[in-house]
């Protein structure tokens, strides 16, 4: 059913927001079924860092990295090239191709033990976590 909707051109975003959105058992069922998100977002707002289940977009990407079969490049695609296809103003962004804007998030992929929360106080420990380090952007309008 949902695959038909996707084939018809609708996009699905995992959107791990502030409350009532993501629970690990549902997340597992979706990932086991292979219904990977087209895009990944956070519902992010100015105070997201203080919301334990959200923190930042790299944290949400890290959940996919740790608890699904998606590879790093497949996870990254959900917040880069895939996201750029959704809205025309992002066309040409989301890549490091020749001629693309010099917009870069520099993330550190650290290994260790990191806690990841769903929206229902469910805690999991993952071995990898992407951390935002610096951002370079050349945007002018």
């Amino acid at each position, binding site marked *: 059913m949902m695959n038909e909707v996707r084939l018809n051109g609708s996009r699905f975003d995992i959107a791990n927001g502030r409350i*009532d959105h993501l629970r690990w058992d549902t997340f597992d069922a979706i990932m086991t079924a292979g219904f990977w998100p087209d895009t990944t977002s956070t519902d992010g707002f100015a105070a997201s860092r203080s919301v334990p289940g959200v923190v930042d977009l790299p944290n949400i990407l890290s959940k996919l990295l740790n608890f699904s079969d998606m590879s790093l490049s497949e996870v990254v695609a959900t917040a880069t090239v895939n996201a750029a296809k959704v809205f025309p103003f992002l066309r040409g962004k989301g890549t490091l191709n020749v001629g693309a804007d010099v917009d870069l998030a520099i993330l550190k992929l*650290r290994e260790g033990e990191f806690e990841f929360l769903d929206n229902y106080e469910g805690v999991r420990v993952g071995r990898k976590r992407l951390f935002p380090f610096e951002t370079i952007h050349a945007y002018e309008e």
Partner: protein
Amino acid sequence: MHRRQFLKSGLRAALGVSAASIPSILSPVLPPIYRNPFSSPAHAPNANNPGGLDSLEIGTGPIFQRKMDLSLFPLLAIHAHYLQDPRGAHIALEDGITGFVDAGSAGADNIDDIVAMARAAPQPARILINIGRRGVIGEGDTFELSLANVEACKAAIASNLDYVVGVKARLTAEVTANDREVLRRAQEAASYFKLPVMIHMGQSETPMGELVKLLKPGDIVVHDSPPTTHATVH
């Protein structure tokens, strides 16, 4: 020191690279650099990064490139609410977000304020207008169906075509009086301008399987993993 020299020396210091190794795509004008306040100092070796950040290569072709434990790519957030706060866009930038969409924080009645903030954002920022004319409100964006006003929405889009990139419909049961009708109205306003609709799913009264039948190509479903029968897989 000239601004460009200052920035360039700052990048060298931050990344620990020599002048010769600064990638050519960063020259001659080096863009601003935003550091995440919680990131560790660039040169500080630690258990997870024994060598510190000793080199950096930026290339072309793939969507991202890795050297040591670094990943580099433009990070795009198509569903956020950073424009609810004047600091939001800068905080997003510190977190790596180089472009984003504010998804329905404002409706027709308060679109001007949020467009002004989008214009002021350091990175590309656009807006999904909430079909609820007052935007996100505590009582529920469309707890009164009259708040989902198609004509007001269309007029606001027409006045801000350069910044409105779609229409947002939040369909949680506590937020709307009638999810199907609100989605229908969102589609009516969006379709007039050939724009997509983003639906906020989760705990809606109507099952997700029914609501997605009302979508058109290019529309977006967000929050697809809630613990209800409304998840994409259950």
